[in-house]
Structures are given as structure tokens and as C-alpha cells.
């Protein structure tokens, strides 16, 4: 209703403008100019995106021509010797983001449920705005805390404990470095929890109340209501929130660069240092040793761009499916 109303009023406006233009030609030039001006600014968004894609592809072409697909499975990285293999960065990005997401998801969904359905309204609101405020802290500050507080703590307390008690698992073998894959996973988890929580919260509040009341009317306890009525309805939206968090984790640069140790290797142990795609760009792009080196970093950027675009588009579609136009779905 509301939408059709605004649509018709907008159409009326346009026809009104057209009529004015027809009746008094000299008065409407302002309108026409204004229309073209706003159109230009609007179109520049599309232009920016196209230029971005074009530049990234153009600049990475030399590397693509030289190495082809072999680039993504090469393990050796030595810019001075012009040896470029991207596998350690792909591996580091995938492992750190996936493990961070696995740890962050249950915590975020639990917190979102606490905010929407368990806490008294005021407490829920307070927790919610606290989480939102903390989502705004810049990543370089998380990195600062990570490298000066968390990494030493990991090195002195957590990692020796893991080595002593779980050292038989290959994931926890080696020396305690502090800066490590584990540190990157922790810092990423802390950073993406607020994002997943706030989107999940929005998705949960979009679930119709009738859905919940129906479950209660059947005698469900609160948990049964959440499990049977709320979560299934919000499932695709929550999945969208998680995927959006994944996109953020993969593109995250500063905090990870500061705690992961920046060593291009593929180590099974989480205690060993690693490297990610954005980190290698951040560390090496300003001081490339050769044209090819710059081009290779551009190609890593291109891979990162494509991956995050796919992830973001998927996430948006999933979130929209719950928060928009949910009236037509089977309730």
C-alpha cells in the first residue's frame, strides 16, 4: 500500500514536471539541469565500481600472463628471487576466517537471542547498543591491543598450556610464538562477533510475533519456542549474517597483519605464524621490488575482491529474504 502510494505520487511528480516543462519551456531548464546533475552523481557509483574492477584486472594482467593458474598453488614466496606462490596467503585467509566464524557464530546467535527474547527490554537494549558501539572501534585499535596485550598473554599462558596438555594433536605443536594463526583467529572472532550479532538481532526482530505466540499457545517453553518457531524462520537471515561476517573476516587487514606473524608458510599448527592475502598487500605493496611483484600483489587483491564480492552478494540476498517481503512467505 505504502509503496504503491509513494510510487504513484512520484509518477505524478514526474508528469507534473513534464507538464511544467511543456507549458513554460524557459522555467524548466533548472529542473532538467538538476535532474541530469543528480543522475551524474548517482551514475558515478557505477562508474567507480567499473573503474575499480578494470584497474585491478589491468594491473594484474602481467602476473596472470606469466604464471597462470599455477600462481594459486605455488608455495614459495620470495619477491627478490621473483618466486611468487600465493598458496600460503590463500591458506592463511581461509583457515583464519573459517575458524574465527566457527567460534563467533554460536556466541553471536546466543547473544542476539539474549537481546531479543531473554533479557528484560532495558538490559537487552543496553547490551545491544554496547555491541553496536564496539563494532565501530577501528581495526587498528583491535590490532594494537592484539599485538601488545593478547599476543604476550597467548605466548606466556595459553600456548604453553595447549602445548603441555594437547601437544599430541598436530594443531597445537611447536614453540609458543605469541603472534600466530591462533592470535589472528582470536582477534578476528572478537571483531566479527558484533557484526554477526547486530544483523542476527535485526533478522530475529523481523520474525512476526504471531509465529512466537503460536508456539507459546501450544504450550512450548521459551527454548522450544526459539527452536521451533523463531530459529527456523530466521535461518536464512542468520546464515546471511554469518556469511557477511565471513566476508568481513577475509577482507580484514590491519588487526590480522599486526598479530599473525607475517610468515609465508603453510603450517598445520595453529601456534605457528602465518600470512593472509590482505596482510601481504599491506606489508609489501608500498615497497615493491619489481613491476612483476606489484602485479602479483594486484592479482592477490583481485582474488580478494572477487571472493568478497561473491560472499557479500550471497549474504545480502539471504538477509533480504527474511527482512524484506516476508509477508508472502509461509508463516
Amino acid at each position, binding site marked *: 500500500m505504502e509503496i504503491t502510494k509513494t510510487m504513484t505520487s512520484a509518477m505524478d*511528480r514526474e508528469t507534473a514536471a513534464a507538464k511544467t516543462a511543456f507549458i513554460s519551456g524557459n522555467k524548466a531548464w533548472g529542473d532538467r539541469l538538476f535532474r541530469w546533475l*543528480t543522475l551524474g*552523481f548517482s551514475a558515478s557509483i557505477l562508474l567507480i565500481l567499473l573503474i*575499480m574492477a578494470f584497474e585491478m584486472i589491468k594491473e594484474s594482467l602481467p602476473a596472470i600472463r606469466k604464471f597462470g593458474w599455477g600462481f594459486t598453488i605455488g608455495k614459495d614466496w620470495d619477491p627478490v628471487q621473483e618466486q611468487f606462490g600465493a598458496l600460503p596467503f590463500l591458506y592463511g585467509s581461509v583457515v583464519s576466517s573459517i575458524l574465527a566464524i566457527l567460534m563467533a557464530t554460536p556466541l*553471536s546467535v*546466543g547473544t542476539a537471542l539474549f537481546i531479543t527474547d*531473554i533479557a528484560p527490554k532495558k538490559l537487552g537494549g543496553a547490551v545491544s547498543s554496547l555491541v553496536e558501539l564496539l563494532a565501530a*572501534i577501528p581495526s587498528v585499535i583491535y590490532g594494537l591491543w592484539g599485538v601488545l596485550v593478547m599476543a604476550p598473554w597467548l605466548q606466556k599462558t595459553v600456548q604453553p598450556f595447549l602445548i603441555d596438555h594437547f601437544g599430541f594433536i598436530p594443531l597445537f605443536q611447536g614453540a609458543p610464538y605469541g603472534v600466530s594463526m591462533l592470535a589472528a583467529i582470536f582477534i578476528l572472532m572478537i571483531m566479527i562477533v558484533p557484526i554477526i550479532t547486530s544483523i542476527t538481532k535485526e533478522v530475529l526482530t523481523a520474525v512476526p510475533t504471531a509465529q512466537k505466540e503460536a508456539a507459546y499457545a501450544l504450550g512450548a517453553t521459551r527454548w522450544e519456542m526459539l527452536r521451533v518457531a523463531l530459529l527456523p524462520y530466521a535461518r536464512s537471515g542468520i546464515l546471511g549474517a554469518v556469511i557477511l561476517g565471513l566476508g568481513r573476516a577475509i577482507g580484514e587487514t590491519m588487526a590480522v597483519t599486526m598479530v599473525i606473524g607475517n610468515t609465508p608458510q603453510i603450517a598445520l599448527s595453529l601456534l605457528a605464524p602465518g600470512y593472509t592475502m590482505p596482510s601481504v598487500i599491506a606489508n609489501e605493496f608500498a615497497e615493491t621490488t619489481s613491476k612483476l611483484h606489484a602485479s602479483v600483489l594486484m592479482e592477490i587483491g583481485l582474488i580478494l575482491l572477487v571472493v568478497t564480492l561473491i560472499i*557479500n552478494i550471497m549474504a545480502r540476498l539471504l538477509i533480504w529474504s527474511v527482512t524484506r517481503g516476508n509477508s508472502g512467505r509461509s508463516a
Partner: protein
Amino acid sequence: MKRTPSIRLIKNGLMTLLMVAATLAVLAPLGIIFVHILKMGASSISLDFFTQIPKPTGETGGGMANGLAGSTIMIAMSSLIGLPVGILGAVYLTEYGHNRFADAIRFSADVLAGVPSIITGMVAYTLLVVPMKGFSALAGAVALALIMIPIVLRTTEEQLKLVPGTLREASLALGVPLWRTTLQVTLASARTGIITGILLAIARIAGETAPLLFTALGNQFWSRKLTEPMAAIPLQIFNFAIAPYEDWHKLAWAGALVLVVIMFSLSLAARYFGRQKRYS
């Protein structure tokens, strides 16, 4: 009806407890980080922070005055570029854009907002740093503007959509041309909401580091021209945090405190504007 604590109720209690535990586990590290920033920042900050530039290694003291100035200049420049594009672009979407093209713009804005910020830095590097043969504050501002534009566009669009169509029609009926109606009625009545969006966008770019790494680059001294490398608070925090000097770590903590205070003030201001009454 007699009620015994069944397995269902126990399960309910257990799950509630788990959710409370999850909330505490989420808030705990965030609280710890916050306490550390306050404690370390407060013990390291002094008047020098705001008046001095960083001292060379080995000397104590120094501040981030050049970073504060650099951040302010670059934020102002990127607002100059980003705000007109974002706001007027949103005007097209709400006032004229009921077509496929507008949908494409909306989609591009969402896509652009999801691009990792380091990529915008790389693009600004190839577009500006390479042709101008040097790192510059200008390139940094452009990189930040690229991040700002989609945020401002989408928030402004949301606000303009809330302005009732009758307001516009009333103005048009008085014979006011559409462009003046848009500027003086539509945009003016959505003012507070648009300001909220702008403040949030500024808060966002004030903390961005990655796009500045190979555009503004950073500078240990004052910059005299916009075509020179320029210091910024987030860049200085990064460089000082990973350096092995105790004094620089202190400066980094002080910078973090200042940055957090600035961002929280901005988002408090945004909340204030967001709560103003509209269209009642």
C-alpha cells in the same frame, strides 16, 4: 494441574543459561579491550600529544599533532568529494529513480560498501599515486571518499524516503520548481537524519588505516602540501604499535584513546540527531 519439573523445563533453563553465558563471553573481551585503552591511554597521554610531532627513536616524549592535523585535513577533503556525490546521488534515487538503472545503482552501492578497504587503497594508488609519481594526502582523501560514498548514499536515501510525498506536492502546488522543492523542502526536512548518516560515515573513515597505507603513506614530520605524504592518527598507531620501542607503544595507546573518544563522540552526536522528532 500439577506440574513437575520435567526434562523440558530443565532443558529450557539450561539453554537460557547458555545464552547468558554467550552474552558474557561476547562482552568480556570487548570490555577488557576497552579497559586497556582507557588505562594505557590515560597514563600515556599528555599535552605534548596534541602539540608535538613524533620524536626520533631513542628520545622520549613527542606527540601526534601532525597525525591529528593530517587526519582532519584528509577527512575534510574526502567529505568535500564524498558528500555531494552521496547526497545528490541519493536524491536521484528517491526523486527520479523508479527504474532499473536506479536499482543497479543501489546494488553497486551495496557492492562497493562490501569491498575490503585495502582494495580501495590499491585502486587509489594506481589512479593517483602512480600518475602523480608520489604518495600524497590527495590520494589518501580519494581512497577515504570511495569508502564514504556508498555509506552516505544509502543512509541519505533511507532518510529521503521517509519524507512524506504530500510535503513535496504542497511545495510543487505553490509553483516552486522541482529542483528548489528538492533542495529547500525535501532535503531540508530530512536534514537531521542525513546529518546522522554523515557523522557515522566520518566516524568510519576516521579509523580507516588500510586505504592510507599506500596513498597518504604517513609522515614523521609536518606536511606542507597536499601532494606530499601526510601523517594520520590510525597510520601512526599502526606504525608505532609494531615498532619495538616502549615509548612508541605509549604514543600508540594515547592515539588509540584519542581515536576512540573521537569516534564515540561522533556516534553519540549521531544518536542525538537520530532521535530528533520528524514529520509528526
